[in-house]
């Protein structure tokens, strides 16, 4: 142990002396290596940030990992069975998506088809059950079309919407007479930009209703969307009627994987030949396998750039050993073991690699911070983004690996210098 520490400290002293004596050269080595290490760090950072962003979007739009999604052949009868089953089982959430128009009656919506407000999906087509569709010829007016999702219980246990303002739906209270609506960000944008009367029409509903807007969430959807309690909507539209093909409601049930409610629903639906189908969300794994290939391709390219840097270090290292032949022979003459000489050369390139890694990590972290500050307001996934630790580790590994690759051959050369060199010089 003592011997080891003596050698280690000797190597450190000699290595630092060597680097200080050749500052410019060390700097040039770092420059040649910098781009390669930076590329590795940037690829890792980009992949991590992108993966995190994609994952959180997927969680918002389809559900967190481990959510079981039940789809089935939706008829008024099967819808009634499902909604009845879920009444006493809030651990599963039944959702029904409907198309709704809020605003002036008898006009074409500002965003026909429920499109995002800066897109135009063309005029609405009105289709009858026999399959003939006609373009609506209503005059344009102050109305907003959006997708309305009715919920039997709190869907946020599966889709973690980010609150933006106001409140989320409270499922514990007595249903309100006027349905309470929570908007997504795009819908909220529409309501602030356009003054529309608070009158909501649903296809299939007998009368128009006056909703209360109580909050805004980020649900990851770029089209306008609103959420409502199923029981508050039921006063206006019987739940079983939601699955009527003429209304176009789309029913889906979200529940924890392996929850007993799954068995109950499946057997009840099978009993009426509704052929239920269950998929379990496993985005992280799916996505990782998708991104893995991409990440590997980019890492391979970064590795190539790194290899060029290694060639640079190797070149400088060999030249340096050539210049230091006499120094190394002399050090051997005064008793420095060959292994230590090799260690010193390797230590110098490793130190160079580590310094380069530190510089590359610093630059990447600063770059990410700058991007987050400059673009964070437009790009939500860059908001408060942290420098991923695995990118830092990758940078350090790249720096060390480059140091070993670039220093190995010079180290062997240094160890092989004959001592008698000092007598024949």
């Amino acid at each position: 142990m003592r011997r080891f520490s003596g050698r280690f400290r000797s190597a450190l002293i000699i290595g630092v002396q060597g680097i200080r004596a050749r500052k410019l050269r060390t700097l040039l080595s770092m420059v040649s290596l910098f781009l390669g290490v930076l590329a590795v760090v940037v690829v890792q950072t980009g992949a991590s940030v992108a993966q995190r962003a994609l994952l959180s979007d997927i969680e918002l739009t389809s559900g967190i990992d481990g959510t079981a999604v039940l789809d089935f052949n939706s008829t008024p009868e099967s819808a009634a069975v499902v909604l009845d089953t879920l009444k006493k089982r809030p651990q599963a959430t039944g959702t029904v998506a409907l198309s709704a128009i809020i605003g002036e009656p008898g006009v074409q919506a500002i965003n026909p088809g429920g499109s995002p407000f800066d897109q135009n999906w063309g005029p609405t087509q009105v289709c009858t059950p026999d399959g003939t569709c006609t373009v609506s010829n209503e005059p344009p007016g102050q109305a907003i079309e959006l997708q309305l999702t009715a919920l039997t219980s709190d869907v946020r246990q599966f889709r973690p919407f980010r609150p933006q303002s106001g409140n989320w739906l409270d499922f514990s209270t007595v249903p309100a007479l006027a349905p309470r609506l929570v908007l997504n960000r795009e819908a909220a944008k529409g309501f602030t930009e356009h003054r529309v009367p608070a009158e909501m029409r649903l296809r299939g509903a007998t009368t128009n209703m006056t909703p209360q807007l109580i909050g805004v969430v980020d649900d990851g959807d770029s089209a306008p969307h609103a959420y409502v309690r199923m029981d508050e909507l039921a006063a206006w539209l019987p739940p079983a009627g939601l699955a009527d093909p003429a209304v176009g409601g789309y029913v889906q049930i979200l529940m924890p994987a392996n929850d007993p409610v799954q068995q109950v629903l499946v057997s009840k639906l099978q009993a009426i030949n509704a052929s239920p189908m269950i998929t379990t969300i496993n985005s992280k794994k799916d996505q990782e396998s998708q991104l893995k290939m991409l990440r590997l391709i980019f890492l391979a390219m970064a590795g190539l750039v790194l290899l060029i840097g290694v060639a640079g270090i190797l070149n400088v290292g060999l030249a340096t050993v050539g210049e230091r032949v006499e120094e190394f022979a002399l050090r051997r003459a005064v008793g420095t073991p060959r292994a230590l000489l090799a260690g010193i050369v390797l230590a110098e390139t490793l130190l160079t690699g580590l310094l380069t890694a530190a510089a590359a990590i610093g630059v990447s972290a600063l770059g990410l911070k700058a991007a987050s500050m400059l673009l964070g307001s437009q790009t939500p996934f860059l908001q408060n983004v942290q420098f991923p630790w695995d990118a830092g580790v990758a940078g350090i590994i790249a720096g060390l690996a480059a140091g070993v690759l670039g220093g190995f051959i010079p180290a062997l050369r240094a160890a092989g210098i004959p001592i008698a060199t000092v007598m024949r010089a």
Partner: protein
Amino acid sequence: MSALIELDGITKILKGQQEPRTILSGVDLQVHEGHSMAIVGRSGSGKSTLLSILGLFDRPDEGRYLLAGQDITRLPERKAAKLRSSHFGFVFQRFFLLKHLTAAQNVSMALVNGQGWLPRRDRRARVLEALDRVGIAHLAKNRPARMSGGEQQRVAIARALVRNPRILLADEPTGALDTETGTAVIEALLGATTRGCALVLVTHDRDHAARMDRTLDLVDGVLTARVPS
């Protein structure tokens, strides 16, 4: 008195592309504590080769090498490095100072060699003592570029002495110096023998050789005692 070093029939054969050439043949030599010895001979006679075998830079092809009674003829390199550090000091014709280091750091180099560890304070004390022994303690912070040849060679001697070696090997240490400076360097080397260190000096200078306890002549790889004239 038993010898510190005893060489017995040392032979060195050079095997190159050409046919093998005998450089040292059957060299017998004894080196005693506190004694000095000059080795003279024509250029190419094998003086440096002999010194490199004495200093464990190289191994003989035949013969026996005893150090303090121990046979070290076939010593592995790792142990040889340790002995070079603990028992030997070397001075060469060229000074081999590292130009990016000060005089003190150049001397300290022999202490920072991975053979044991001395704290910085102890290192500094020993370095200053060694520099003082060769009379240039005041130059401790100078770099080689700002020193004369004689001063540089004395830094090299201090580097050889800093670990208190038992044998000092010097290969033409005055070869690059004028007579007067050379004499001062020889004085510095002889100073070490008063502390019991043995000195083996290879030189072309008869006056310097004459100041040693004895002189040996190397002629075509064969060592012969020279009768003092």
